């Protein structure tokens, strides 16, 4: 029986990490009897092991629940800045959103970013203050902040405890009452927005869709309008929370399509599905290809593991279309891959999955951003690794972000100092309440990728919250700093920095390397250079003695084993210009700011 669009509500929950999004989702599933108490597992929607451990949601999913004669589709959104594009696609699939704020913490930077996204998408926002059962909760203050943010009356803010279940039924009622029903054209050619996809090793790519117009039917020929991929809908259905196949999904409904495609890159989030028989004239708006902005080299610690790393990346890519990789050969680190990520968390997740799910020992180089460069008399190219920046060029551009930082007012000075140190351009300062300040800055992404977030946390004693979105490429006065060990450039240690900081960074890096490179049998020069000009130098002094003092009849086995161990240790080092460089040294740039006053 076709479902009347008037009885459908599609909504997301947007919240800062730990403000209780997953707990609220669990409670909704319970209260609507979508899952029995016996089936209940905390944070049911976060299915990946890593997500559960980190308490964050990486891949969005959708669950259908029934409430008082209505069909409610809860579309889960990823909770992190790196996945802003996925969040925006999820929001586009909805007519409304629950904005959840912790009653003790108030609004955080991520709450703001996602709330703005929801407002941009014309969603009806249902404000919710959660965790009112906590002793330190201040529901009045939190309600006032939220009401102020979305321009609503504080009385309209729902006060709940997802943990105890208090107030959750009122949330469901509000979804029905306040969020508008979908308003697509059920008779038009079908158009369905892909807001997420996953990979099933038996069934191929599964697309999660919101049908906007028309009807999607099982076994129908479908086409992804932006990429042009064609396939047969092998099965369609909805999640509740398990997959429930149906014959058709109608305008306004949310569900999944089993495509049988073997490669996630053939189907992109944001694309529009239509029917081959009666295709729509134009796709839904808003599709864009997400481009990785943060890059790092991934090398197997043991070079024999290279094929395993390649296979693992291939498998990861199957359900992570945003992951980019290409083979990279470093003279220092051997064979590996240059990988591109949406951001730092994405990088961390990929690395952890490679180590955990594929049992690989990895060396990850210091991350850098993508640069656009115009070599002398040539066309613009994008550079993903500092060593590839040519010595001479007409212009170079680096990506910028708009950073949004919320911080108690006593830490504003520290945050501004940090942002200024990182070439930030002040944009805006606003008091959210008497205590809390919202700051916006424009910053080069390259200044963020190493340790900005750690610095921000430590300088504000953990109180700052931070979010950003990309603001495009801008020209920069940048230079490539090379590191030479014993006169030989080490590609994996090159970095691109603003010329004003080149001398300071180069000096810090060679000092750090002097500590990391053990003394050898001869003096080793460590130099930083821009082109042919040396800007800093340190020397690792040669060892003067290295002997095993005594070796008589009773000692021989032990001494032999000692030498074998030393020998094995040497094997793990990389030879650069005859110098044995431990792998840790290649990460020196990561810790550049340790102890340095910045």
């Amino acid at each position: 029986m076709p479902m009347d669009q008037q009885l459908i509500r599609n909504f997301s929950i947007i919240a800062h990490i730990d403000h209780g999004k997953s707990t609220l989702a669990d409670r909704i599933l319970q209260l609507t009897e979508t899952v029995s108490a016996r089936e209940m597992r905390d944070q049911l929607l976060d299915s990946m092991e890593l997500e559960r451990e980190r308490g964050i949601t990486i891949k969005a999913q959708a669950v259908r629940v029934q409430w008082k004669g209505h069909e409610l589709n809860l579309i889960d959104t990823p909770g992190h800045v790196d996945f802003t594009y996925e969040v925006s696609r999820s929001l586009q699939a909805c007519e409304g959103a629950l904005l959840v704020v912790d009653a003790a913490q108030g609004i955080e930077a991520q709450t703001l970013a996602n709330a703005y996204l929801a407002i941009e998408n014309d969603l009806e926002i249902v404000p919710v203050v959660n965790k009112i059962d906590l002793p330190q909760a201040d529901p009045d203050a939190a309600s006032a902040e939220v009401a102020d943010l979305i321009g609503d009356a504080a009385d309209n803010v729902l006060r709940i405890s997802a943990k105890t279940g208090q107030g959750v039924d009122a949330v469901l009622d509000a979804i029905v009452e306040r969020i508008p029903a979908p308003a697509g054209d059920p008779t038009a050619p079908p158009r369905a927005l892909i807001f997420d996809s996953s990979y099933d090793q038996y069934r191929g790519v599964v697309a999660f869709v919101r049908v906007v117009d028309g009807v999607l039917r099982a076994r129908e020929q479908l086409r992804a309008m932006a990429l042009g991929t064609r396939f047969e809908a092998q099965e369609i259905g909805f999640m509740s929370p398990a997959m429930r196949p149906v014959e058709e999904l109608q305008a306004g409904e949310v569900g999944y399509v089993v495509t049988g495609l073997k490669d996630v890159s053939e189907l992109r989030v944001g694309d529009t599905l239509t029917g081959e028989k009666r295709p729509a004239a134009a796709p839904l708006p808003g599709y864009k290809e997400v481009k990785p902005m943060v890059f790092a080299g991934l090398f197997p610690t043991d070079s024999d593991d290279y094929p395993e790393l390649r296979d693992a990346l291939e498998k990861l890519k199957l359900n992570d279309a945003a992951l980019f990789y290409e083979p990279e050969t470093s003279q220092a680190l051997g064979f590996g891959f240059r990988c591109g990520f949406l951001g730092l968390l994405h990088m961390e997740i990929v690395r952890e999955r490679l180590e955990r799910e594929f049992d690989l020992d990895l060396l990850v180089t210091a991350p850098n951003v993508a640069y656009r460069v115009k070599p002398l008399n040539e066309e613009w190219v994008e550079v993903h690794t500092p060593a590839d920046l040519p010595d001479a060029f007409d212009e170079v551009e680096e990506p910028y972000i708009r950073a949004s930082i919320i911080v108690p007012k006593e830490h504003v000075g520290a945050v501004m100092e940090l942002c200024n140190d990182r070439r930030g351009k002040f944009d805006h300062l606003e008091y959210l309440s008497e205590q809390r300040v919202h700051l916006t800055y424009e910053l080069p992404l390259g200044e963020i990728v190493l340790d900005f977030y750690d610095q921000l946390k430590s300088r504000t004693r953990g109180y700052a919250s931070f979010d950003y979105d990309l603001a495009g490429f801008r020209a920069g006065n940048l230079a490539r700093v090379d590191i030479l060990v014993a006169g030989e450039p080490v590609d994996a240690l090159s970095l691109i920095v603003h010329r004003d900081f080149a001398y300071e960074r180069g000096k810090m890096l060679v000092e750090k390397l002097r500590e990391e490179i053990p003394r050898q049998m001869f003096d080793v020069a460590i130099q930083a250079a821009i082109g042919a000009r040396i800007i800093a130098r340190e020397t690792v002094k040669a060892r003067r003695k290295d002997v095993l003092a005594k070796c008589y009849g009773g000692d021989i086995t032990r001494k032999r084993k000692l030498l074998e161990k030393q020998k094995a240790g040497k094997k793990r080092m990389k030879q650069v210009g005859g110098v044995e460089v431990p792998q840790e040294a290649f990460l020196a740039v990561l810790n550049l700011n340790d102890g340095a006053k910045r």
Partner: protein
Amino acid sequence: MSTTGARHLYVHLPFCASRCGYCDFVTVVGRDGEHERYVTALLGELELERDLLAPRLETLYLGGGTPTLIRPDELERLLASLPTADEVTIEANPETVTRDLAALLAQNRVDRVSIGAQSFHMHLLDVLERRSRPESVRRAVHRLRDAGIGNISIDLIYGIPGQEPAHLERDLAEALALEPEHVSAYELEAKPGTRFAHAHGAELVRQADAMESYFEHVVETLTGAGYRWYETANFCRRPEYAGGRDLRARHNLGYWLGHDYLGLGVGAVSTIENRRWRNAPSLARYTATLAAGERPARELEELPPPVRASERLMLGLRLDEPLALDGLEDALDEPGLDRLADAGLAVRNGGMLALTRRGRFLGGGVTARLLA
């Protein structure tokens, strides 16, 4: 390696008056009453293993512990019962060398005595927990000379916590003043797990940089005084200052040249052909097992030819004479050797490999890079 039997015999005498903090040998403090039983056990083990020995021994070495601490009648019984050899060495703590002991040794074929002097500074001896005093070293040397012992070695330790360059200088001068035929100079190693490492480890790390030059200083002083730096930590008077005698320690030379050797006693190690074994360290079990006419408990290690080849390389490079590479090709890391040669640390000449002077100071690291 020899198919006609080992020509080097080591006998371990574990008894000590007290245990020095830095020592990691198998030692037993006190238990004077057990000397007789232990000597009996040693001779019992000798009988069980006699077939492994060559008819004529090149060297016999009594080490410890403090071999000279054993009851004189038992020491005499032991020396009288052990097979004779071209060189018979005993280790002695200076304070144990009485006129009677010196005479006993000389009368029982001992012709070489290695004296554990370690330092001539009272406060450094205290740090090492040695019971001897600086004057007891001098007295011991004179008594041994008076008894007719013509080959005396003095052990020195440098790198002692609190040891200043001037202290090392004076230790070397004091030792040289006694005109020993042989000097062993070891850098102190604070082996993990010893009481000493626990008490002084941090201090040793702190002074490591300052002490880097001590090894060079030891080598320069001793070679300048007419001694041959023939092994990493061992020096002997040059033949031209010794009536033409080759004063290298023949027993230890056997180890460094990769010869077979038989070891008797608790914790003693033997290496014969492709096997090495270490007697278990428990004194009580050692004597009890041998009293029952059985071999002591042993830890056995197989030494396949590649391992023995590695050891030949490791040991041979400690010596000042070039090492013949014949048969060691597989143990050698050729590219490693090329790099070391380029760095001026090793020289290959035909089938011979030698370390340069700087290479010898870095012998440990050099060897680690030369091993395949």
